[in-house]
């Protein structure tokens, strides 16, 4: 496969950033209220201190309080999920790894239903906080079980699968035994992944954690490359395997937990996109990780636009749309793995 040189990758990143900016600007204009790109620009300029825009407060509200945070959150979630997927696939040497493999999403859902259905926290705790706490609990269980049983990658994966089963079962049990119809509907919508509750706080928190984890991941890119032939080979190349693995597992789990707590479990972005990006820029992580983040951001901006407008006024959970796109792509990945390519 012809791969891009250094100049090609820099061009690709510049083009990707431009495409992302354009996608965000365009996606905001799509929807029931008719808005033009220059309206978006005017609102952004005015909110950043550049004087008054000539729009009505309602239209300004739609842009600044609804569509802009939602579109930006889509970009952050797409970037973060793609990044986590790429890191975990290399770290666990498993092409089918995704950000939810280590039980983070199922732990988050248990935390969320505890808050929403059983009222844990007495109203002082939001769904997001409950989900975040649940995600960390589940991840802690996976690490404990994984390292207690030997700490090899397959033990970690098995521990993740076990935690996923356990917390999914807990979630179902709580919903079936205690939730009313309205709560069930709300929880289900969130479980499938939805960006409809996006606000500026979510965007800022998500972007900050994304930035930090991206920096950590690029910093360890050389070490991640060295995992290509397994952890013993990485160790003999001078990589502190245990330290790097723990650092990256924790970083990706944190980011995934933040994203899941604000947007639910949006599937398949983290599983499929890294494979597509590898085919274009190769498997060197210094190139792969930023490119996957960019591709994930652009992808989810458009998928969310489809999710909120395709069946207007009814909204489709964005996780449903990613899976409808993702499953056929997943089938291709499986086919390639079977052929051993």
């Amino acid at each position, binding site marked *: 496969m012809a791969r891009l040189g250094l100049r090609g990758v820099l061009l690709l990143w510049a083009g990707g950033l431009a495409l992302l900016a354009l996608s965000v600007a365009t996606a905001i204009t799509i929807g029931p209220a008719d808005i033009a790109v220059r309206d978006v620009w005017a609102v952004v300029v005015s909110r950043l201190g550049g004087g008054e825009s000539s729009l009505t407060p309602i239209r300004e509200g739609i842009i600044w309080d609804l569509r802009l945070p939602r579109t930006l959150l889509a970009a952050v979630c797409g970037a973060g999920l793609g990044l986590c997927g790429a890191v975990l696939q*290399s770290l666990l040497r498993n092409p089918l790894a995704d950000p939810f493999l280590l039980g983070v999403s199922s732990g988050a859902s248990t935390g969320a239903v505890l808050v929403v259905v059983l009222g844990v926290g007495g109203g002082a705790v939001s769904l997001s906080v409950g989900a975040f706490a649940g995600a960390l609990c589940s991840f802690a269980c996976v690490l404990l079980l994984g390292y207690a049983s030997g700490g090899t990658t397959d033990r970690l994966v098995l521990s993740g699968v076990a935690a996923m089963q356990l917390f999914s079962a807990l979630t179902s049990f709580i919903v079936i035994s205690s939730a009313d119809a309205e709560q069930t509907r709300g929880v289900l919508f969130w479980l499938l992944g939805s960006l409809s509750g996006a606000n500026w706080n979510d965007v800022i928190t998500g972007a900050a954690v994304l930035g930090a984890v991206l920096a950590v991941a690029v*910093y360890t890119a050389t*070490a991640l490359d060295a995992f290509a032939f397994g952890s013993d080979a990485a160790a003999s190349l001078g990589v502190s395997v245990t330290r790097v693995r723990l650092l990256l597992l924790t970083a990706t789990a944190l980011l995934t937990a933040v994203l899941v707590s604000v947007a639910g479990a949006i599937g398949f972005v983290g599983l499929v996109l890294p494979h597509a990006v590898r085919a274009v820029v190769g498997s060197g992580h210094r190139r792969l990780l930023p490119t996957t983040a960019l591709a994930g951001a652009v992808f989810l901006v458009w998928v969310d636009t489809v999710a909120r407008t395709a069946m207007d006024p009814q909204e489709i959970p964005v996780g449903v749309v990613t899976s409808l796109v993702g499953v056929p792509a997943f089938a291709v990945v499986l086919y390639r793995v079977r052929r051993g390519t």
Partner: protein
Amino acid sequence: MGLSAENVSWTAGGRIIVDGVSLEPRPGETLGLLGPNGSGKSTLLRLLAGVRPTSSGVVRLDGNPLRELGRRAVARRVAVVEQHATTQVHMTVLDVVRLGRTPHRRPWGVLSARDEEAVREAIRRTRLEERAEQSWHTLSGGERQRVQIARALAQQPRELLLDEPTNHLDIQHQLELLALVARLPLTSVVALHDLNLAAMFCDHLLVLKHGRAVAAGTPGQVLTEELIADVYGVRTVVTRDGPDGRPSVRFLPPVPDAPTPPQTGTVGGFSSATG
């Protein structure tokens, strides 16, 4: 000086895998590790590489204990070639050889001119120039091992540890690979199955049985019919027909009703040290 092991042991799940082995290869020589499956050859190599911590005893590099040196510092001196490297990652030969520069790189840095020079030199020495852009997955077993040696050379080590590097190769590639290793101006420790290849290419041999060193010396001193019967439990005829009068081992079929050779006891009571 160089790499040495002093009375090293490794225990896993209550079982002693390596039991008080000492060795100190001379700079530039090729030291062969012999012994049947499960005798502790691979584990001993992992201890020497510092990939596993010793349960007792100490591995030293120029007199400094390995565990005090740090992983990166060790990887700049000691390179490892596994018996069967596999990956699912799509990589070219050049990508794989460049991995050898990992211990020399700073986290944010790109490959320097020195890195690229080391990679080119490693590819030249292993005669892989024509293959540099080829995908790892399209290579034959012999070519893959040569690429792994190139990757190890790109680390610019002074010690090279090889774990049964010829295991999956046909006879021509076995000979080529070991000739290459013996030719390198590095101290090599190589675990081998084939006694004749060991006799042909190694300067010294160390024989392991149940994790213990039971014989050490030149191939001529070590490879005797008695020792092979004791360690491997097979009958042989050893002659001096190898190159430069080195021993040549011919295997005989087992005698149907003969008592099996004794499985315990050592020959000569060796427990340490070549050179």
